[in-house]
């Protein structure tokens, strides 16, 4: 197989006057689990559909396995899709659904039967072949849709928000199953989702999209730890933003004065998008610590008042209003043995370090 399996270069997409995609460039590697993540209306589904061949691009190129997909209709592309609504044919049984694409390829009947049985087994629906498709539950329909696509052994499997219609428990189960399935079949998966947690837990790499543009394309860890801008940081996980005044320091560092926290010297790699007047300081909730007990110490210390407490059992989330800052910051603490949970209006000592601060535009 060629690498990258998909190359998107300079893709624009217009619907009349509305531009849905702006100069999208990306390379998707063979065999990876790739996610397109973004809020609704960001163009992620449009992008997926241009790969599938349901939308043509207004400008730019889609290449799959080294071949241009210009003028190649959806039925001739080496991709298959799992639709958001699953799109299970209601007038066919489960087996007929799975056999649909094989029949289109004019595969002999007995071979179809074997392939269908294998595919159903793969998705955990062994023995369901003769069921009417409308008698299947949401999770089962999802598996039928998966089997129907995978049985064709596509080069790329496209998944359009496949888990959004499932309840939480089912969704978590399907997340891990999808992951396992992807490793087992070794096919490149492209998942469209608006759920950042889903994208983080499942993907090898993620493209975060906003308003028709890719904001950042990186691994989950990179996205979380080094978001390139405020928008990405806000979308991935929780990020506290604090005003900051920055001066260039020595040897590629920045001297920062962060509102509510204090002074810090921040290395340049913690400002992945560069620094200008609009920059703010971003701190993840788990990077701040509530210091409890006289002996608890931290590299740096700030103080504030607890505004709200959200107790989750294993974790406690605090909204703490740092002295001199209007809006509260969120701090998450693991409820380890012996650590007291503060109450509202308690004074809190907040520990932090320069390495936990990001400078974001």
């Amino acid at each position, binding site marked *: 197989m060629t690498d990258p399996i998909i190359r998107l270069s300079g893709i624009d997409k217009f619907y009349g006057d509305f531009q849905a995609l702006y100069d999208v460039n990306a390379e998707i590697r063979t065999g990876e689990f790739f996610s397109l993540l973004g809020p609704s209306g960001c163009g992620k589904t449009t992008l997926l559909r241009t790969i*599938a061949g*349901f939308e043509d691009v207004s400008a730019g190129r889609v290449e799959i396995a080294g071949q241009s997909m210009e003028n190649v*209709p*959806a*039925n*001739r592309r080496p*991709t*298959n*899709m799992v*639709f*958001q*609504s699953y*799109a299970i*044919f*209601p*007038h*066919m049984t489960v087996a007929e659904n799975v056999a*649909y*694409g094989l029949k*289109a*390829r004019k595969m002999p009947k007995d071979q179809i039967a074997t392939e269908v049985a294998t595919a159903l087994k793969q998705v955990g629906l062994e023995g369901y072949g003769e069921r*009417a*498709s*409308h008698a299947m539950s949401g999770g089962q329909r999802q598996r039928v849709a998966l089997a*129907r*696509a995978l049985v*064709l052994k596509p080069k790329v499997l496209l998944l359009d928000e496949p888990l959004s219609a499932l309840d939480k428990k089912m969704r978590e189960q399907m997340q891990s199953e999808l992951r396992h399935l992807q490793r087992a079949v070794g096919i490149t998966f492209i998942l469209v989702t608006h759920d950042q947690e889903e994208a983080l837990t499942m993907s090898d790499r993620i493209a975060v999209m906003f308003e028709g543009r890719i904001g950042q394309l990186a691994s989950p860890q990179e996205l979380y730890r080094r978001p390139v801008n405020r928008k990405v940081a806000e979308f991935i996980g929780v990020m506290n933003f604090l005003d900051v005044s920055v001066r260039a320091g020595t040897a590629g560092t920045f001297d920062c004065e962060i509102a509510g926290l204090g002074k810090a010297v921040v290395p340049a790699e913690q400002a992945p998008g560069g620094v200008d007047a609009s920059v703010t300081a971003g701190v993840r909730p788990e990077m701040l610590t509530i210091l409890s007990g006289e002996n608890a110490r931290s590299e740096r210390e700030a103080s504030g008042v607890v505004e709200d407490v959200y107790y989750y059992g294993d974790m406690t989330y605090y909204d703490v209003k740092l002295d001199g800052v209007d809006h509260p910051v969120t701090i998450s603490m693991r409820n380890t043995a012996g650590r007291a949970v503060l109450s509202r209006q308690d004074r809190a000592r907040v520990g932090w370090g320069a390495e936990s601060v990001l400078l974001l535009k």
Partner: protein
Amino acid sequence: MSGFTKWRRSEEASGWLLVSPTLVYSILMLAAPLAMVVALSFWTQDYLQLDKTFTLKNYIEAWSEPIYQTLMGRSLKISAFVTALTILLAFPVAYYVSFYVPQKRKPLWIFLITIPFWTSYLMRIFLWKVILGYNGVVNGSLLGLGLIEQPLSFILYNQNAVVVTLAHAWVPFAILPIFVALEKIDRSLLEAAEDLGDGPLRRFIRVTLPLAMPGVVAATVIVFIPTIGDYVTPRLVGGPNGLMISNMIELQFKKANNAPLGAALALSAMFLVSVISLIFVWLNRKYLVGQK
């Protein structure tokens, strides 16, 4: 509270109250006459005398006389042709409106499709007479173009004219159910079919058409049942060879003065239509399974 007052205020009572005007009307105008026709079909008539002794003579005659067999067969045949032609004409229109007309213009299109109903049915038949007649539009145009030397006579006053006229009259009734069925098809199913490797034609055959079948079956029933008993059209454009069973029924009731035989013919036709319709209803059930 007495039992009656209690019942009067119940939901059941208000239900009965709501349906009663229609119910009374249907009993008086539909059920009662039908019962009379049924009774009549087992009696005999001698000029103005009705002999009310039970007999199956009328039915035996209705089913065994070649002339009635011919007319019944012809009615079925014409109906079948009308239905087939109507569906063939209606499907592309319904398909176009459902798949190619922008969503917000669809109501306008549906409205336009119903416009023929603004003219009386009789008027439309007469228009067809004008179009198909010896000196009509079709012949006039063909003569004017020099394509024919003599006016064509086979286009009016025969079965073809009946089929054409009836199909035109019923097309809107067929378009609507087919349109509704097409509208209900989840468009992602069509994308899925394409994604799985089907070109437009195979996709139509494997997905669109089967899913549109409930509409097609409904249209078939809607067109087939009334046309088999149609009386005006064959009378006006059918000529001697285009007459159908209903014309014979009329003849028996009026000129032939044999109402019982007319009744037996009418009920036999009704029986045939019911059997055929039930087959379609059964087909529809079969197709409807699995579609929600």
